[in-house]
């Protein structure tokens, strides 16, 4: 039976969550197009075996395992030939890649090498029974495009955090090791250093996110909402204007051009609600908007709205939260 190949990675803390999300997105497609659900799992070595177990538990049968010290976070030029090798071996009809830092580079290049069809940045992916179809946000989140792959094979990149991690669905599977030959000297790009930005940790995984917008008026405003986020045990994010103005690091940005978040609680402070930002937060379960302008579009998205000056409201809320947590 022809295959659907998932590109899964294990760089540090086990199987990447986005890889598991891919499995969730791939299962209905594999079922609809009658494809074997397979995966290539790559990484420097540790955790690969456990990752294969996890994949089996979630419905992935055949797994190609590739271990090499160069298969690390961000090292596209090492990962690409190995994924290509797996794809040539598995000859899949569909390859699914997470549209993360590496995936954004890897998916188009893999499609080129395979002479494939290419769908990128899907937020929803499925099948109409004949072809792979996907939805993408376009025009700054103002519209959604529906695209269908026009030929086989198809490479699809899926935006992280647009689907939930799937329920387990254990299947019997097998693991086959790929013989990886990589020569460091031949890599056209080489990651010299990975710097993690502290403030950024967990924005995408946080259960509570407090986002700030143009309405905060400057970098100082982010201190105010930072205190609220700290009290709530959450992370701080931003819409595009603060990131563009340099008030916050660019990777705090949430929205179409930034991160997609799906927290249990999202508190939008001084954010007008431009579609560009909204595109990244619609998956949040509960949205609270604090804005001075009662006409701001964010209120049409929020579940609860507070109209007023954030400089008054946020400290009150922070105090109240601390009081509750302290009690």
């Amino acid at each position: 039976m022809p295959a659907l190949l998932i590109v899964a990675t294990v760089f540090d803390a086990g199987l990447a969550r986005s890889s598991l999300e891919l499995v969730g997105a791939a299962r209905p497609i594999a079922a609809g197009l009658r494809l074997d659900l397979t995966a290539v799992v790559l990484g420097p070595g540790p955790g690969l075996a456990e990752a294969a177990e996890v994949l089996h538990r979630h419905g992935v049968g055949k797994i190609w395992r590739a271990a090499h010290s160069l298969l690390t976070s961000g090292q596209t030029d090492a990962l690409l030939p190995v994924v290509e090798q797996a794809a040539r071996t598995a000859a899949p009809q569909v390859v699914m890649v997470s549209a993360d830092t590496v995936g954004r580079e890897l998916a188009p290049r893999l499609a080129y090498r395979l002479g494939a069809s290419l769908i990128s940045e899907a937020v929803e992916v499925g099948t109409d029974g004949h072809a792979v179809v996907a939805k993408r946000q376009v025009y700054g989140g103002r519209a959604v495009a529906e695209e269908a792959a026009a030929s086989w094979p198809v490479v699809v990149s899926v935006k992280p955090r647009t689907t939930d991690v799937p329920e387990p669905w254990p299947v019997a599977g097998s693991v086959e090791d790929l013989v990886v030959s990589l020569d460091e000297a031949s890599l056209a790009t080489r990651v010299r250093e990975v710097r993690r930005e502290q403030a950024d940790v967990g924005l995408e995984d946080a259960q509570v996110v407090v986002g700030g917008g143009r309405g905060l008026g400057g970098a100082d405003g982010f201190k105010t909402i930072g205190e609220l986020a700290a009290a709530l045990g959450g992370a701080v994010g931003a819409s595009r204007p603060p990131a563009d103005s340099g008030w916050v690091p660019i990777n705090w940005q949430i929205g179409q051009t930034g991160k997609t978040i799906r927290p249990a609680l999202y508190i939008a402070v001084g954010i007008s609600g431009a579609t560009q930002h909204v595109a990244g937060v619609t998956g949040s379960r509960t949205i609270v908007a604090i804005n001075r302008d009662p006409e701001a579009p964010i209120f049409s998205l929020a579940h609860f709205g507070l109209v007023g000056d954030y400089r008054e409201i946020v400290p009150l809320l922070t105090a109240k939260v601390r009081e509750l947590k302290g009690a």
Partner: protein
Amino acid sequence: MDVVVCIKQVVDPELPVRDFAIDPSTRRQVREGRPLVISTYDEHALEVGLQLKDRHGGTVKALTIGPRAAVGDAVRLALAMGADEAVVVDDPRGPDLPGVEKAAVLAAAVRKLGRADLVLTGCESADWVERVVPPLVAEALGASCVTFVSTAEFSGNGLVVRRLADDGFHVVDVRLPAVLSIASDDANRPRLPKVKDIVAAKRKPVHVWAMADVPVTSGDRRVRAPEVQGVTIPERTAKCELLSGDPAEQVATLVQRLRALKLL
């Protein structure tokens, strides 16, 4: 060091929602009568190219695909910012070509331009947001590729760049020739052209190439673009509860609601 910066003219992404419409026949945004601007990140790409030129010399060429009549402003801005010359590949569908096809034309145009050590693009276009052009151009040209780059500097025979990543940023050594897609950063905030440069830009050369004059090879066209089946504007339903009272009352109500939802 010769740099080619690919720029694209898009309908102003800040266009009022009311003026945003999809043309059902083309399945793309209606452009007519809408203000056009350079796609946001393309200006940052220009800035990175110009900074490299300022520091190390060489040339910067701006390359765009679009209806020649309409791209004037974008090209003039690029020239005023400091690009040495500009090439317009004249194609009425230009801005709405799928990324896959656009990448093929850009790769062929870069080849036709002759020497290019570095091709820069924005990290995504403000309209179609596929993010596929830079890696595809790199493949077609056999160049290295890094996307979402915030800064780039020469180091030895290559470049060292900073790539924005999900978990922070990566410092990456890059071999030349290379294709980089550029994300916004404080360090590459696009320069505002000086007025004398705006005036001088009027005398800089703008080459217009017909699509037929750009030798796109079958190698450039290895990837198939998806078929766009529809573009819809999602509807949103208002369901917001506006909390009443002074700030303290609003906060009290909010805390009550959030506790009821077990969020606190």
